[in-house]
């Protein structure tokens, strides 16, 4: 009788533990999804801001058509990105193109003093910051989610209910790692 009681108590304890484990995995998965949405919102905002910026600076930077073209091309590629790894790569390329544009803009004093450009630049650099903070937050929470799925004995529950690890938003593109090249020689 008492043996049966102990057995029942152990089963109940394991059940309670499994439920808690499952719920914490679900919570983490929702946080990961939410973290990704945060990045997505900021990326979309960046995509919306870029055509404005390019149109405003076009008149001032007529000698930098190539750089502007590259920004537009990178932006259009980024809009069509699918999945975390693809987005990370294409957004990385866009960040590189943008930072090159901003570095070149330093050569145009009239451009730098333009109020609209200043505001656009503030919005864009804030969006860049938001993207990197959102990425920082997403990667932290996704790592936590992945660890929770891999460590014993949580991995049993994760396997049982088919949880899959989340991809990290990593800076894979060489463009974002390298320092932008700025040509300071005078144009002919």
């Amino acid at each position: 009788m008492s043996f049966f009681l102990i057995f029942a108590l152990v089963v109940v304890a394991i059940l309670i533990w499994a439920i808690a484990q499952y719920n914490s995995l679900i919570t983490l998965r929702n946080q990961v999804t939410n973290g990704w949405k945060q990045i997505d919102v900021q990326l979309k905002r960046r995509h919306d801001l870029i055509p404005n910026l390019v149109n405003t600076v076009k008149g001032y930077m007529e000698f930098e058509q190539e750089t502007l073209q590259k920004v537009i091309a990178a932006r259009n590629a980024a809009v069509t990105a699918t999945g975390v790894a693809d987005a990370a790569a294409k957004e990385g390329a866009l960040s590189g193109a943008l930072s090159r544009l901003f570095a070149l803009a330093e050569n145009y004093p009239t451009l730098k003093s333009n109020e609209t450009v200043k505001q656009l630049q503030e919005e864009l650099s804030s969006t860049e910051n938001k993207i990197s903070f959102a990425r920082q937050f997403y990667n932290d929470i996704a790592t936590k989610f992945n660890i929770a799925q891999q460590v014993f004995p949580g991995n049993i529950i994760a396997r049982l209910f088919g949880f899959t690890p989340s991809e990290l938003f990593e800076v894979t593109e060489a463009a974002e790692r390298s320092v932008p090249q700025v040509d300071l020689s005078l144009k002919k």
Partner: protein
Amino acid sequence: MSGAPANIYEQQAANRRNTLLVMATFILFVGFLGLGFDLFILGFGSDGIAFPAVTIIALLLGAFSAYNGLQSGAVSVLRSSGAVPAPADDPRYRQIHNVVEEIAIAAGVPKPEVYLIPDPDPNAFATGKDPAHASIAVTQGLLDKLSRDELQGVVAHEMGHVRNLDIRLMTVVAALIGAVMLLTELGLRTMRFGGGRKSSSRGGGGAGGVILFIIWIVALILAPFISRILAMAVSRQREFLADASGAELTRNPGALASALEKIDAAVEPTRSIKKGTAHLCIANPLGSDINEREGFLADIFATHPPIRKRIMILRGMAYQHG
């Protein structure tokens, strides 16, 4: 309320606990005032009334104002420092709104309301009940004097207070300090007014009654001091942790260090911020010297740790980050 908390979860738990403790202490204090009124003025327990009505009423009122302090303390803190909402669509305030939003994303909390204090001295504070109902107030001087990165450092420090739930405890303390001061004033006045009545109606109260009466008076006189000292102790320990949380959010401790240097260099006191809210600010708004000293007195009366010590620690972190 002692020891250095190891992480933000412990800090959150400690803040929840201490908020309840402060509220309970406040309610008991108010009840105690009421009990004194019953005992010494209405003559409860001797030849006067048979029911401690004032004590019950005081406990209820105390509970109500403690609850009110938690729910709408932030509103009165903001109002008392003359803070006004910063319009988000005004180009002059775009940057601060952007910076607050960036740091909110980094901390994973909803964006707090942004308030502006029209004061030329650089300072900032955060207030609110929890991260979903938080406000960050900055002075005009802070916006004028700091670079974007430094502003980010200051906002990240405040966001540290928001995320650690420091704001809940500090807002309740700020709201209740005012109430304690008001009640002490009221209590001392009633005592003066009711003193004659007491001696005539009670006559032989005995030695016990006299001792109780003395304790009551002493508690009444000391209450404002004790609540201020409590507020300061509550605040000081939190500044280092908020600095560290801020550095963790921006990964740029150097910017906060140089912001603190600029805030320190501005010697003018922040006039808009009243004594009761001093413990909420990033740097002591009263501009007093005591925050720069170390030792026993400074330990008791300073609202903030020495700013130079904070800068030194942040510079150390910046060095490690490379």
